[in-house]
């Protein structure tokens, strides 16, 4: 089998030209301390054992790899398998990273955790892990998202977290990140910033990727058990890109496994109302990293749109940009409408209600399955469950009627 060496990245904090650390000076000692602690702990047997133990006994790993027979028949082509991150405690893959980073924070002696959240899933994951590990937790959330995701705000509060409503800028995820960074600058001594995706300054994109890579590692073992070989294609949705990198990374050196990241096409790429950063963005610097961003000709960050709040972000993880540039992974977009169709299809055919984010991946996987035909295997990462989206879907469907 042809092997390439891409797992070595980041090199000096960079994925090709991307990544790096573009942050205010006050935060430099904090990320240096984090990088040092992580390098030490990732080889520490006790840390690895703790992490793995919480993942199995608290979060419910391994998650199943399910052969979606009905969906396969419906799509009419390649076999479709679903990696069931929706069954993880908390209802999404976010829990993997939250447990990992909370353990890290604790070992570093930090007592206070801050996080940003868009849809609320990362906020909920952080609140869960923090409460279980006895850490104080505060979550920043844009005012518009607070309104859209009331239920998740209440869930975070139930879990003992304090939710700060962010009223600056566009009042969505990017502004919540800005505000969390500002809090971190002020409280850098005792506070740990728990980033929810493979974004931000180095070493965050690497740390989050490593914690999420359990997804891909399990897929490898499970596919080997079922088919005695590697999958042909992996499909995952991309907002910041953490579930996608977690899925891709263990396969990144196997050039025969094709990788597809699915971005939010919103109302269509021509409408300009989407969040497809890799598809329509350009190089820029945002939230501590050099990456692709959606911006105007002056470099101001654009408003994004997606039916799924979790994909509604104008940046993307720097490693995805690298994988796109060297053509190791393909990035495509699926519209709101297509994602909604997939949401309904999967619910009816398999009795699984996917998160709207994950529905983007399901939609594209069906298209691919049809195109590449039988005797091929596609694994789709079902990053989360759809309970949080039911109100939104109801509103949309009613409106359509």
């Amino acid at each position: 089998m042809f092997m390439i060496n891409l797992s070595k990245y980041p090199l000096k904090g960079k994925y090709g030209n991307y990544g790096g650390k573009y942050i205010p000076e006050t935060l430099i000692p904090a990320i240096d301390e984090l990088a040092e602690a992580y390098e030490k702990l990732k080889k520490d047997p006790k840390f690895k054992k703790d992490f793995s133990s919480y993942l199995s006994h608290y979060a419910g790993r391994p998650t199943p790899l399910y052969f979606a027979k009905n969906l396969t028949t419906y799509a009419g082509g390649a076999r479709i398998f679903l990696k069931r991150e929706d069954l993880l405690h908390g209802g999404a893959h976010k829990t993997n990273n939250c447990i990992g980073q909370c353990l890290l924070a604790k070992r570093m002696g930090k007592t206070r955790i801050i996080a940003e959240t868009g849809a609320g899933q990362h906020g909920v994951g952080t609140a869960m892990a923090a409460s279980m590990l006895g850490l104080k937790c505060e979550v920043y959330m844009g005012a518009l998202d607070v309104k859209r995701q009331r239920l998740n705000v209440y869930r975070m509060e139930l879990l003992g977290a304090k939710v700060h409503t962010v009223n600056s800028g566009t009042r969505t995820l990017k502004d919540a990140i800005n505000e969390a960074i500002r809090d971190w600058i002020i409280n850098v001594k005792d506070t740990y910033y728990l980033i929810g995706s493979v974004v931000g300054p180095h070493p965050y994109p690497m740390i989050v990727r490593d914690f999420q890579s359990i997804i891909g590692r399990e897929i490898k073992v499970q596919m080997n058990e079922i088919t005695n070989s590697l999958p042909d294609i992996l499909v995952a949705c991309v907002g910041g890109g953490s579930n996608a990198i977690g899925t891709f990374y263990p396969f990144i050196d196997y050039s025969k496994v094709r990788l597809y990241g699915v971005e939010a096409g919103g109302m269509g790429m021509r409408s300009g109302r989407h969040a497809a950063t890799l598809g329509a963005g350009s190089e820029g610097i945002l939230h501590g990293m050099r990456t692709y961003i959606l911006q105007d000709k002056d470099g101001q960050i654009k408003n994004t749109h997606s039916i799924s709040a979790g994909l509604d972000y104008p940046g993307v993880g720097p490693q995805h940009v690298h994988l796109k540039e060297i053509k190791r992974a393909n990035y495509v977009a699926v519209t709101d409408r297509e994602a909604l169709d997939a949401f309904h299809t999967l619910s009816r055919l398999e009795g699984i209600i996917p998160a709207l984010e994950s529905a983007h991946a399901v939609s594209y996987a069906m298209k691919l399955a049809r195109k590449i035909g039988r005797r091929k295997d596609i694994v789709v990462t079902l990053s989360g469950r759809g309970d949080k989206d039911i109100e939104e879907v109801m509103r949309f469907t009613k409106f359509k009627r």
Partner: protein
Amino acid sequence: MSFEENNRINKKFTDLKSRGESALICYVVGGYPDFSHSEKIISALVSGGADIIEIGIPFSDPIADGPTIQDASFKALTKGMTPDKCLLLTAKIRKKFPNLPIIAMTYSNIPFKKGFKEFMCRAKITGIDGFILPDMSIEESEDYVKFAKELGLATVFLVSPNTTRDRIKKIIKHSSGFVYVVSVFGTTGVRSSFAKYSITSIRNIKTIAGPTANVAVGFGISTSLHVKQMIDAGADAVIVGSAIIEKIKQDISSDNMERKLKLYATTMKRPCRQSH
């Protein structure tokens, strides 16, 4: 650090130091409350005693700024302010004050988007003397510093209260014009008083920087008492930003705004004159 280059910032510091004075640096958000007011505001501050003007080129996501400057940037952008118009504003100021040092403060994505070389070249032509990019770390600054050097522009890097001794030395090496000492753990914004650690860190940084380097202190400074404290701790300059924006906001519809700003600059400059 090159503090002796032939540029307006260094010349200003040399002149002031020879008279035993410290510099008053006044910050304004370009295009706040609107383009024509910005021009008048800068003139008022200069006539009141501002030695150096720092023009903020508004960015949509200003992570190092507190609510006051965030809000002013957002309003300026809403009114159609762009980096190009900011350069136009600079050109007008430059025409009026040929010797005034002018520094642009913005976030890395603004020059990055146009290309550091092209953007800085245009900035130089319109009369800008240097840049402050609060999200630019020295590790990522190779191109930025290289092009700035070629063009004779100053690169002002920031130092924080938690910056290590070795790193302070590196930052000073990368800086030209002056180094910007962040007085507090925090974002920009008016503070009523400063903790002891602020004063200690300024003293420490000035000791490391040495007498030839120019050390400016900013974040939170709003009264003449603050100015005196910073100068006593060893600052060669103080930077006043949010306090000016708040004054503009208060008097936004008043005919007295310019007069009041001039008076404010005079008040803030006074302790700079009695410094050394």
